[in-house]
């Protein structure tokens, strides 16, 4: 191969990104070197500043540029409702739905006992601190519908209970606009099990 050492190193570095294999890394690297060196420099700066400037919110573990993230900092959010999610991407998804005005707690993972991932890894100490503060009236469990997500929800519900905070779990079921026949059997049986009364 005719890759110089620096180019090889760049390709290897680009391959750390999700969805980027050898071919894509090569296309990206050649593009920057051939056609857009300014773009490359902007990328380096932005990446460097982001990595140095973005940490975790000390209240909710969402990405933050100060000690507290914008959602926790604003007066406009209802601080008495706390929604527990697994990842920052989950926060973004719920925010995009514009259906929620409370605050969050991001676990940055879920209980995965066979991988040795337990409460410490999920920042449970910070969560307990918030639950014991007396400010929270409802905790919403929005962990994934996997077995690990369910174990996580059960564990956090137990924590909430021990602090006398009522816990609710988001509903799982048929997607809006979805045809029933295309819904997988697991989701369907869950949806039937958790049916609600119909106010016609």
């Amino acid at each position, binding site marked *: 191969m005719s890759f110089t050492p620096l180019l090889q190193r760049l390709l290897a570095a680009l391959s750390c990104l*999700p*969805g980027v*294999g050898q071919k894509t890394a090569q296309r990206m690297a050649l593009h920057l070197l051939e056609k857009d060196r300014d773009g490359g420099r902007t990328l380096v700066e932005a990446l460097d500043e982001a990595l140095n400037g973005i940490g975790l919110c000390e209240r909710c573990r969402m990405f933050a540029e100060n000690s507290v993230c914008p959602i926790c900092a604003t007066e406009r959010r209802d601080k008495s409702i706390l929604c527990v999610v697994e990842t920052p991407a989950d926060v973004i998804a719920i925010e995009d739905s514009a259906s929620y005005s409370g605050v969050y707690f991001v676990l940055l993972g879920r*209980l995965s*006992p*066979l*991988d*040795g*991932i*337990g*409460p*410490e890894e999920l920042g*449970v100490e910070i969560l*307990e601190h918030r639950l014991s503060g007396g400010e929270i009236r409802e905790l919403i469990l929005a962990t994934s*519908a*996997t*077995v690990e997500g*369910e*174990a996580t929800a*059960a*564990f956090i519900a*137990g*924590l909430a209970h*021990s602090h006398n905070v009522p816990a609710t779990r988001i509903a799982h079921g048929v997607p809006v606009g979805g045809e029933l026949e295309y819904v*997988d*059997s*697991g*989701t369907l*049986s869950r949806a039937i099990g958790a049916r609600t009364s119909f106010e016609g």
Partner: protein
Amino acid sequence: MTMPSHVDMQPAFILHARAWRESSQILEVFCRDHGRIGVVARGARRARSRWAGHLRAFLPLSMSWSGRGGLCTLRSAEPTARSLEVTGMRLMAGFYLNELIMKFLERGDAHPELFAWYVQTLEQLAQDHDTEAVLRRFEVTLLREVGYGLNLTHDAVDHQPLDPEQTYQFVIEQGAVPVGAGQSGQLVFSGADILAIGSGVYSDQRKLHSAKRLLRVVLDHYLGGRPLKTRQVLASMRRCV
């Protein structure tokens, strides 16, 4: 038994899944006729995967795969019944069972009787059984199935049936050795407690506690220093609540 290169419609459970490459998963599977195997499920992590939520632990599956030795390739996985509904904190007991199987079974060794016992154990976990008793019965069966069976009926010295009133010291790899009544120590038990562990019928909490004490030491002995991660996670969960 060597595994054929195509296996069809095999009763199976997923013990554990881990991400592999861009969009796939490597599944640790426990199946009836071939024991523990490793299977690649291609595309399992895509949003619209053809496995559609079926690749869950504790869900009875009928699986087909190709290839042998090392990793096989999953061809189909269909639920054969509703999930066994192990829910809430009982999931932790389920994860523990799965870790025991992964640690004690060699890949490719068939254990059809243990498989049947695993199904029964999950059913009991899904119902209102005492989780601790269910786990202890599984541990005793697992040890027997992999060749480390404990003698929980006769004394190891003169091979007489255990006397419920007698005190015994349990010696690993040997069995129950009679000792004086005043004796104490980690592996000192009444005959009645050892008999209870053997029969799996626990009439009181003390017997259950004895079972936990004995089996923990025996399991650790055969694990040879490898830690059980589910046990560690459970301990730190207990510290929180």
